């Protein structure tokens, strides 16, 4: 249990309000008081009297842009998340349970994938989802894959024991249930860099959608299970890599800071795939790339901004001959994981993303590149341009 008397990080706030200036939510939805008021300012009052807690804190998307802007190192997003954990009213919402329990929803939908994808595309079904679940009918739903990445892997992955080193791969829910080709691309890229790949014995959702919907206990259970698996994997390999920026940020930062799950012993070994790929490159591994004559626009997802690691993906992309890279100004796309899938947030989500969508259209890029899976869904639906993880672009450019 956290000791509130020791947790005084919010006291470093000087009330400069720079965080609110960079908050995409308070810009789009003035009903949200913004990170300063909801975070450190509100915390001072909530510590005195819990009735100062206010339900508008649920408008926070946990994008972390406030923390990136803060000159005083206040963990504003964490203060808000912890206040929600402590004070928010719990009421069961079937929609939130479906959206946030990605392992349950994912395995169910994958096993029925063609039917689920078909039904989710039908108007009456979408009407039902909007009416009874509060998921906007116009929002594009992610397609589920008939075969998960894990099942494909265990049904005939190429041999991985002929490489100089082996790394563990945390595929995440999206690669597993929705986009197995991202998992396959990850393996191909790592192989091309001289690293063999093994999966964790078992893997659960990192927990980020659970936290977003208030299921902190379930998130903590997942975190503890993943911690045990990661520790087991690190007995055999030096690194556990993941291609999703949000999973990486969550496991490295949210486990200790929000869920109270200690990862100090291995935090640095849980890494973003492109960052480790860059490391392998610096060690002299040189994958061969064939020319890819397209223009891509790089979008810095919010959690990539927090990790601060965009440069690795960009440097790798620069190795592909013929690839033209446009750097989009870093701004939130609005989806914030499951946030934009909830009817009450969907308008805010689209408003937040407007600037990014028009920047993407103006760039005339044929493809957007981003490490975040929900940015992909939002960008493809709202800007009308396909979006892929840099790992996929790099794998596509591999020669042979």
């Amino acid at each position, binding site marked *: 249990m956290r000791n509130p008397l020791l947790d005084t990080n919010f006291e470093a706030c000087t009330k*400069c*309000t*720079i965080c*609110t*200036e*960079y908050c995409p939510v*308070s*810009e789009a939805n*003035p*009903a949200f*008081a*913004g990170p*300063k*008021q909801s975070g450190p*300012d509100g915390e001072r009052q909530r510590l005195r009297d819990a009735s100062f807690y206010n339900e508008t804190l649920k408008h926070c998307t946990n994008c972390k842009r406030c*923390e*990136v*802007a*803060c*000159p*005083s*190192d206040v963990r504003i997003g964490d203060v808000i998340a912890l206040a929600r954990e402590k004070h928010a009213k719990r009421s069961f919402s079937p929609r939130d349970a479906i959206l946030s329990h990605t392992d349950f929803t994912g395995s169910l939908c994958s096993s029925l994938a063609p039917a689920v994808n078909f039904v989710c595309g039908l108007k009456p079904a979408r009407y039902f989802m909007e009416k009874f679940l509060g998921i906007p009918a116009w929002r594009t739903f992610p397609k589920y894959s008939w075969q998960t990445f894990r099942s494909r892997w265990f049904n005939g992955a190429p041999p991985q024991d002929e490489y100089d080193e082996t790394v563990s791969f945390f595929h995440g829910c999206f690669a597993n249930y929705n986009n197995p080709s991202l998992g396959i691309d990850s393996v191909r890229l790592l192989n091309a860099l001289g690293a063999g790949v093994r999966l964790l014995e078992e893997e659960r959702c990192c927990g980020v959608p659970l936290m977003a919907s208030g299921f902190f206990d379930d998130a903590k259970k997942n975190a503890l299970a993943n911690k045990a698996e990661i520790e087991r994997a690190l007995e055999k390999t030096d690194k556990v890599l993941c291609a999703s920026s949000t999973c990486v940020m969550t496991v490295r930062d949210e486990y200790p800071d929000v869920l109270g799950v200690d990862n100090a012993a291995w935090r*640095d070994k849980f890494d973003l795939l492109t*960052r480790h790929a*860059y*490391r392998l490159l*610096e060690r002299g591994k040189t994958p061969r790339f064939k020319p890819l004559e397209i223009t891509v626009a790089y979008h810095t997802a919010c959690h990539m*901004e*927090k*990790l*601060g*690691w965009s*440069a690795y993906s*960009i*440097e790798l992309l620069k190795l592909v001959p013929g690839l033209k890279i446009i*750097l989009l*100004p*870093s701004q939130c796309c609005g989806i914030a994981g499951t946030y934009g899938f909830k009817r009450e947030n969907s308008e805010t989500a689209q408003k937040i993303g407007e600037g990014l969508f028009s920047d993407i259209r103006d760039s005339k890029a044929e493809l957007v590149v981003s490490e975040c899976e929900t940015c992909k869904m939002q960008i493809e639906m709202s800007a009308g341009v396909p979006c892929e993880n840099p790992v996929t672009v790099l794998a596509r450019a591999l020669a042979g």
Partner: protein
Amino acid sequence: MRFDAVVIGGGLAGHAAAISLSEAGKSCVLISAGQSAMHFSSGSMDFLHTLPDGSPVLFPEKSLDALTAAAPAHPYSVAGKERTLAMALRAEKAFARWGLRTEGSLAAGNHLRLSPMGKFIPTWLSFEDSVTVPVKDGKAVFPWKKVAILSVRDFLDFSPEIAASGPRALGAETVIVFFTLPALETLRANPSEFRSINIARILDKPEHKPRLAEAVREAAKGVDAVFMPAVLCLNRENLLDELKTRARKPVKLISTMTPSLLGARLARKLSRIFLKNGGVLMPKDEVLGFEARETADGVEIANVRTRNHGDIAISGKDYVLATGSFFGRGLVSDRNGAREAVFDLDLAEPPGPRENWSSPDFFAPQPSSTFGVRVDASFGTYMKGKPVKNLKAAGLVIGGFDPVREGCGAGVSLVSALAAADAIAKGE
């Protein structure tokens, strides 16, 4: 990761250095510990308004010799008059090139900007849309007989009464008018967040322009100019031009208490220019350590290690340290002394005994304001008495001057940043 140049610090000096280096064709990374003090600034940039003996400066160009005589350790004195003025001119040209619409020049001498406290403060460059007043024969010339100050009702970071005391002191008549919009009511639900930037997010929206224009037009009746607190034109700078056309009178902005929109707008623009030039920004990162090697004639920085990048070192052929003073955490102090935070560089002057760091009179100049690193004429630095061959300093991390008392913080930042970038580009 390897770059031609590594700039540490994302304030005015860091951005100016990084943009100049990227313009000179250098691959450049900017490591920034969070958003900077530009967000608290008026958006005007001062060069020099007071000499150390307290005498006011009207023409900074003419006062540099007197400054050098009185303060030989001042960065302008160390760099020399010629280089200082050349870099100031370069900054004026760079601002025009970067699309920052400023007025003022060293050639024209200091002009005055109206502060939210109703004071006219001498300065060098101001945004075209802020309230400024020329100085003729040593006197402020207020160009309008009667001005309206149009503020947003219940906006607490700006007092029209206090601001109006400035024009009144120069003999102008003032009227105070308030306006509001239905769309501002939602914001008012959180009174503590009824702040300049939040208000601008609403006022900048095209759908509110007609009502805003109407309020300005009403306020402009019977006066020569309309002054507004800077609560608009964050993302739509031409909004003021449109209001001006509609009111057929000058419409000008006065900076507010923090967050200051004019300063924040400057920060955003500089960041975008750097990225457009292909610069790499490492936001919210901090240098935790470095490797250096001794050379025959000094020290050379080999690489730096940061919080976000861990085992992957960031290395450059050249480095610029622009981490600021105590507030920016470029300088740190404890009971035993003060030091430069990243490299422990030599200071311009030893801090001396702790009891001499501050003056008991809060409003008196504070000796600790002059703390900072020792530099040479091209803003090179020193470590344990030896020159650091590839590390320049820029901005408030430099010692030997008092930016508040002398009114020279922005000038020193720009001159040192551009001089450092120039020296790096020339391989000095």
